């Protein structure tokens, strides 16, 4: 059983055949080869599989694949510009220590993006409320909160960029 559906993936329109029982996570990882979205539990409890569908963060592991028909799907692969420029959230996670093993990272960033798209000045309270479904075992979350706060509260410029010096010199 399968149906042709069309949808936009990271801004690119496409049509694919989707089997009825596929989850969106399966479609992305196993059929479309987008491996950035992770599976940590398969049952809605860890957030590693978070992607954005029509502006909303969802657990792709519990999202019926067919339900993305005519919708906009954004995954972690869609955040980086074609020239490699990182999305401000990616940059901030990198610079503020929001990433250790990195397995939770794509999901974290997608949840954070959905939040900031909706309320760009989200407070710490809101950040915690909105990321409660994203588990991280490594960081203790502190630097993840920092990573998001430094964008929501003051714009990217204020992120301390000691680390980036190395790179800038290269250019």
């Amino acid at each position: 059983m399968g149906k042709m559906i069309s949808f936009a993936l990271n801004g690119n329109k496409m049509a694919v055949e989707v089997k009825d029982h596929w989850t969106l996570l399966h479609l992305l990882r196993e059929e479309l080869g987008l491996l950035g979205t992770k599976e940590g539990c398969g049952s809605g409890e860890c957030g590693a599989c978070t992607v954005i569908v029509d502006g909303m963060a969802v657990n792709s592991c519990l999202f019926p694949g067919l339900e993305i028909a005519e919708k906009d799907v954004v995954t972690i692969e869609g955040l980086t510009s074609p020239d490699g420029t990182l999305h401000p959230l990616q940059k901030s996670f990198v610079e503020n220590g929001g990433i250790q093993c990195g397995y939770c990272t794509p999901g974290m960033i997608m949840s954070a993006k959905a939040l900031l798209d909706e309320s760009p000045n989200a407070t710490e309270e809101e950040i915690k409320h909105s990321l409660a479904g994203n588990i991280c075992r490594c960081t203790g979350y502190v630097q993840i909160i920092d990573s998001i706060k430094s964008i929501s509260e003051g714009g990217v410029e204020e992120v301390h960029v000691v680390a980036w010096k190395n790179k800038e010199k290269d250019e």
Partner: protein
Amino acid sequence: MKQFAYLVPRSLDEAISFHEAHGDRAKYVAGGTDVLVKIKEGKILPDYLISLKHILGQDRPLLNQETGELYIGSFVTHRMIEKSAIVRIHYPILHDAIRNIGSVQIRNVATIGGNLVNAVPSADGAIPLITLDATANIQGPKGERSVDLARFFLGPGLCDLERSEILIEIVVPPLLLRTGSAYIKFGRREAMELPMLGVGVLLSLGESSVTCVKARICLGVAAPTPIRALEAEAFLVGKPIDGGTLEKAGKIAAKESRVRDSIRGVAWYRREMVGVLVKRMGLKCMERIKKLAQ
């Protein structure tokens, strides 16, 4: 994962006819946050999933200005309820409960209808709605009917729905003046909890703003279904409300509860917490009434 066909009806009638056609081999699905987990765990093995997502209906809670009734379409997601200003301001008990269901990701897709039909003793949506005296409107092959939500739950995972019936909306009757309501999900951490206990309290005060004219106390995970603590409610009506009366009401409610041991909590502790939390939610109701008056 078990394979199934995913059917997408566009109307209630179509959905019902699909379901009738496939009978026990079919399962309705709304947000799918329960259905898909169960399929993955092999707990249910439907051959057909009938999606209710594409049936046009309300996508947010609506207040009927004339009757004062609040209508919540069954397919409304928790997130829409969480964001509803009407709910936040006038039905804080529902806001308390809904905003802490799962995560944003879950609330973005999970529906209130799914939460009720799923009928687990811990359903966070059920307790506040029972406390608010809500009714459930149901449509099925034989037409429409309504049930009092307090009578909707029959056992763990079991509710008053006949085969092929769909829960279509929840209706909350108008609130009395000077009403406060509050819900607490009691768990071990601050988020992603299935409650060890859910306690909802609603109090309406008389003109003096002292005497209780209506009380509702509803408990989750305190019995095989959500239950009302009727004796505790009766105890409060006609009495001036303060910490002392609420404490006593809490003790009565604790006695009424039929808690048991499970991996999520032991019975003695749950029972004791019923007492503590009924009192606390009662006090919160009073606070909210005061705030409303200002």
